[in-house]
């Protein structure tokens, strides 16, 4: 009796997804650990623990809290990017363009803040619109011209990178390659901290995190509890059937990409309007945030609530990478771990099939015994 209960638990898709994600994480950490062992066996165990512990590695509570805050600051934009990816994926579109939409959002929000001196909420809206516009272009190309969204998104990623670099050059700090800090030019464009900054003793912790979590809930409700969400998911599952049922498949594709783009664009504004980092106008590659969003989306089992945990986890180990002993290792070990985790996410489908096959085999055997 007990065994069958356990089995039915393992049968649940949610449990299987969780298990698969945990396996991905463990394998990623294992590869990271092996890499550390190869580089220098002496400090490898300590280093991998540093990565896993992140802020817990500090002894003072204030310092722990401060570093926890920093992790949260970078979690908010990643969460938005992963929402963008998973939302599009539910409708059957692979939004590799989250990276470019993120760039567009960064450009719009920084330009509105520094050049046009707008308050923060207008900057956020500008970022959403810029991302949505970029997403909608991919959506229109897909709907009307049958251009694969992955390809058009890749092109748009690079186009938007070069555009934003040009757009932001006038608001560059003359002494370096970064844009001015928001605080030095336009205090009103900083995201309000709502007491969170004081709580974490880190001025960059703003309403960004609660806003991002709120968006998660909104997206979950939109997907699961509304007619629009039902239509979008139906379009994703079978485009032709959805069209046959009278759903506007073309409009739905464009709308999906626009919403996904808006989410990624907003994510960028949540990072850059907290003044945590500035845009380097000479950067020659698309920021990895959008691509990591793909990782977080898949690691979170393509579920908005799961994305909260997976986004936090990825930023947790990324931040933890900065703690390793720099005389032996480098911070990129965390990038290595998270990219292995994404790679392993490709095997999730296989893992699930494998689990079900094993369960089936066991049931069959039991069935045979009863005879």
């Amino acid at each position, binding site marked *: 009796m007990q065994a069958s209960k356990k089995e039915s638990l393992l049968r649940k898709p949610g449990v299987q997804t969780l298990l698969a994600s945990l396996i991905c994480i463990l394998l990623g950490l294992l590869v990271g650990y092996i890499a550390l062992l190869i580089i220098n066996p002496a400090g490898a165990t300590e280093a991998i623990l540093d990565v896993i512990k992140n802020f817990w590695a500090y002894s003072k509570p204030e310092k722990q809290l401060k570093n926890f805050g920093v992790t949260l600051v970078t979690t908010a934009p990643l969460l938005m990017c992963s929402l963008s990816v998973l939302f599009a994926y539910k409708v059957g579109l692979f939004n590799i363009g989250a990276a470019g939409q993120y760039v567009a959002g960064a450009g719009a929000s920084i330009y509105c803040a520094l050049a046009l001196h707008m308050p923060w909420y207008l900057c956020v809206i500008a970022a959403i619109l810029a991302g949505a516009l970029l997403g909608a272009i991919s959506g229109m190309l897909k709907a009307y011209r049958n251009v694969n969204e992955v390809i058009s998104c890749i092109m748009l990623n690079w186009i938007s990178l070069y555009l934003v670099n040009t757009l932001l050059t006038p608001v560059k700090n003359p002494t370096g390659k970064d844009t001015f800090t928001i605080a030095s030019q336009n205090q009103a464009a900083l995201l309000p901290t709502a007491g969170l900054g004081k709580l974490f003793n880190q001025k960059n912790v703003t309403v960004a995190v609660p806003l991002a979590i709120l968006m998660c809930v909104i997206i979950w409700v939109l997907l699961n509890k509304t007619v629009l969400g039902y239509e979008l998911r139906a379009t994703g599952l079978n485009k032709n059937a959805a069209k046959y049922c009278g759903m506007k498949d073309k409009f739905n594709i464009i709308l999906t990409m626009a919403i996904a783009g808006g989410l990624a664009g907003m994510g960028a504004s949540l990072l850059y309007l907290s003044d945590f980092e500035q845009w380097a106008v000479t950067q020659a590659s698309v920021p990895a945030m959008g691509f990591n969003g793909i990782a977080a989306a898949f690691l979170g089992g393509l579920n908005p609530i799961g994305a909260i945990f997976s986004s936090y986890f990825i930023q947790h180990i990324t931040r933890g990478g900065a703690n390793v002993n720099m005389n032996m*290792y480098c911070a990129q070990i965390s990038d290595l771990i998270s990219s292995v985790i994404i790679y392993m996410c490709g095997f999730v489908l296989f893992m699930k099939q494998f689990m079900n096959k094993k369960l089936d085999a066991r049931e069959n055997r039991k069935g045979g015994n009863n005879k």
Partner: protein
Amino acid sequence: MILLLQYTLIFTCVLMLVALGGCFSEHSGVINIGLEGIMVFGALGGALMMKYLPSGTAPFVVFWVVTLAAMLTGILYSLLLAVAAINFKADQTLVGTAMNLLGTAAATVIVKAINTAENSSNVSSEIMYVEAKKAFSIVPGTEFSWFMVLAVVLLIASYVILYKTRFGLRLMACGEHPQAADSVGINVLKMRYAGVMISGLLGGLGGLVYITAGVSAWKFENGVAGFGFLALAVMIFGAWKPQRIALTALLFGLFRSLSNVYTGFEFLKNLNLPSTVYNMLPYIISLVVLALFSKNSAAPKAEGIPYDKGMR
């Protein structure tokens, strides 16, 4: 002018090699978004070989050993895609994206580990190969290198292999209709492995050519700055055909080198366009062309779909 010609030709070679790699992979039915990562690994293999070859080695030997090292690392890295996409039916776009991130991250970790082990205060991700690089040039002091000759040979070879040999025609059948190919006794999985591994070979070589173009040291933190994606654009613009890929690579290579050297031309300088415009142009052109001609796309029909015998 001669500078523009040098850069155009060398960038053309890079784009053409990598795009041809993508072409083989896609014709076998596997989308290869991970070209960028493959380039990084090929570059890493080549750079490490240049670093560790003893300084007195004959130029001829240096050229071939380094080239083979880049090809081999490219092939090994491409196996990551092959195993996931062909045996485990993983989402090819996801795996490709992971490979791009992994390529830069792993290369940085490896190079930094080597540098730090040599000298604990050296935390850069740079490999220098000033001496070894000289073995590649035809005319010393310029960018005209033996890689250009090799690239042309490989272009012709690609054309012949794809259209004139049994292997190539079978490979393309696997990308168009794998079930039909299987029904006449072609091993689809083997063919797809071959396609992906050839893309690893060409992509790895392309990475090596890229990091030796105009510079003699490379920071692996920077990856290959989007050249893998540009090559993807070349492949699409080139309609998955070697001869058109070569012409497209020439066009895109010209734009790319213009962004480096446009200040040397009076009339271009007078236009007063920022260099980003020249960087952007290839992507914009390919997007427009895609929008105009995608209705009857030349893409292999079955690309991106894992082969399932049950679908026959």
